[in-house]
């Protein structure tokens, strides 16, 4: 136990240094776009970037937990769509006041995400299956369920207060982004200041050792996937509030953006190394690139190529980090 705690302390300190490098990369990008484009640093554009990264950030927070234990969750985009249509169905029930509807919808959406995550965790941990396959299955189940529930139709027309919430600004900062930031803070506390968090890192480093130390690895793994499902549920609520629709085809490919954010943020795909602050910065690098390259007037195809290059460079850097760490 003491051994594991020590190791994760070391990694936590190290990961702050690692995040520092990513922070510099982000800063360079920001400086570059501020110089080359006219509007990048305008307050409007900053508001835009913050609301554009919000959903990916929320998904990436949950994804960080799963990747830290050496897993992967391919289902988050579909689970988000499923949670959104469940919440959409709840919010368009008749005979209730707006406050009740919003409450029920939020609970229903979060519960839908929670259950999908729980299933991912229980199935992959109990039978020790590759999470890649289990969550690929869940990707199909959740998407199919979302389409089935809605007959492939988009749900729209929500209570006014709910629609308002999605575009509410607090001194120019989207409130939904503040929600995401609060989640980052909670995740940071959980991962760096609790025994639970340290054990997650330890599982990513050496699952067998954690098991031998007498911990119920199964429970921790299930918890990581459940957190990831829950964040997909939260992302669904934010999606609905921002766009005022629940679409069963929402979120296709979002899992890949979330994974990219986590990886660019320096979390190792093999688990045990990384940080939530890195994820925050990684998500911002993707968001700033997408925004800045449009402002520069670069074509969509170039934009996609550059994002791809950034992902690969991040993984190469991670390779060297892993080498120096050992």
């Amino acid at each position, binding site marked *: 136990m003491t051994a594991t705690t020590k190791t994760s302390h070391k990694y936590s300190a190290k990961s702050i240094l690692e995040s520092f490098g990513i922070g510099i990369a982000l800063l360079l990008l920001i400086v570059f776009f501020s110089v080359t*484009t006219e*509007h990048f640093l*305008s307050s*409007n*554009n900053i508001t*835009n970037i913050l*609301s*554009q990264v919000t*959903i990916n950030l929320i998904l990436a927070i949950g994804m960080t937990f799963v990747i830290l234990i050496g897993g992967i969750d391919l289902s988050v985009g579909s689970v988000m769509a499923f949670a959104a249509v469940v919440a959409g169905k709840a919010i368009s029930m008749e005979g209730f006041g707006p406050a009740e509807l919003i409450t029920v919808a939020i609970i229903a959406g979060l519960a839908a995400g929670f259950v999908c995550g729980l299933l991912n965790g229980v199935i992959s941990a109990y039978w020790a299956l590759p999470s890649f396959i289990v969550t*690929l*299955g869940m990707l*199909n189940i959740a*998407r199919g369920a979302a*389409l089935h529930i809605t*007959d*492939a*139709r*988009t749900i*729209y*027309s929500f209570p006014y207060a709910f629609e308002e919430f*999605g*575009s509410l600004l607090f001194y120019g900062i989207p409130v939904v982004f503040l929600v995401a930031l609060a989640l980052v803070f909670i995740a940071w506390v959980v991962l760096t200041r609790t025994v639970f968090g340290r054990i997650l890192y330890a599982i990513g480093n050496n699952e067998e050792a954690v098991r031998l130390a007498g911990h119920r690895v199964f429970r921790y793994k299930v918890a990581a996937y459940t957190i990831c499902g829950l964040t997909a549920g939260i992302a669904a609520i934010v*999606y609905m509030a*921002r*766009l*005022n*629709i629940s*679409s*069963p*085809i*929402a*979120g*296709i490919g979002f899992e890949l953006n979330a994974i990219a954010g986590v990886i660019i943020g320096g979390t190792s795909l093999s688990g045990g190394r990384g940080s939530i602050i890195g994820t925050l910065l990684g998500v911002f690098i993707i968001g700033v690139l*997408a*925004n800045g390259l*449009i*402002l520069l*007037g670069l074509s*969509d*195809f170039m934009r996609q190529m550059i994002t791809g290059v950034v992902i690969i460079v991040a993984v190469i850097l991670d390779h060297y980090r892993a080498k120096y760490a050992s």
Partner: protein
Amino acid sequence: MKIQHTIKYIALGVALGFGTAQADDKPVVGLIMKSLANEFFQNMLEGAEAHAEERGDYELKAVGMQNETDFESQINAVENFITQGVDAIVVAPADSRAMVRPLKKAAAAGITVINFDVALDADAKKQQDFELAFVGPDNRGGAKMAGDALAKALGEGGKVVIVEGNPGADNATERRLGFEDSIAEYKLELLDSRTAHWETEEANSVFSTMLTAHPEIQGVMAANDSMAVGVVKALEAAGRDDILVVGFDNINAVGPMIADGRMLATVDQFGTAMAANAIDQALEVVAGGAPLEGWVKTPIELVTQ
């Protein structure tokens, strides 16, 4: 994806097997559509099923795909229908080149083939020496109707942007060309044109950024309504009510937006009736009517307040 395919083939096999056992002397029409995950095709399927029940003089076998580009399972569906000896195949091709060869094979097997929704590629048809008429809407003409509505509202010199569909998709290209036709005819100024892959959230992000880069935008042409919804939300978030938006498809969600003026117009291509119309045409040919030629245009209509 493999698992998905396997399940689908089993389902298809069971469906087809069942169908054959039931067949009587009514003509059998095989309907092959694109993604049933798209509201548009879901409506189309319901329209066709209602139509089959109403007419009652033919048997309908409908097959849908998992996604818009799943042409591999469309090819398999065509081959299965050939094996079964259906009387007609009515198909909305997922890929306008890849589907030419299997459909030629079907036609050679004596099956009446009707191509609707998206036209097969003219060059590919010529290359394979295969003649086939097309029953469907004029996407380019439809987009031009929406574009013209916007252009008339803005007047000459109006500054516009286009939000495009999937790059390379035939209807995305046609709609963009239609928008560009309006821009040329009414001398509008095109500030930017970008894809948002038909998707609401992406359209919202991409358009907010376009608006930052070009605050002087006066009008937006979105290649489908899902993206138009994302654009409208971006405008609300930016507090801009001076920018006009047109879309395409007339999905349910844009009804209220057109009613209260957040959207100027959209285009209805009557998806519900489209498959049913194509089936009517197929049955006429099966019953001994003259084969179709060229492009049989189906109705499109501009929807405004």
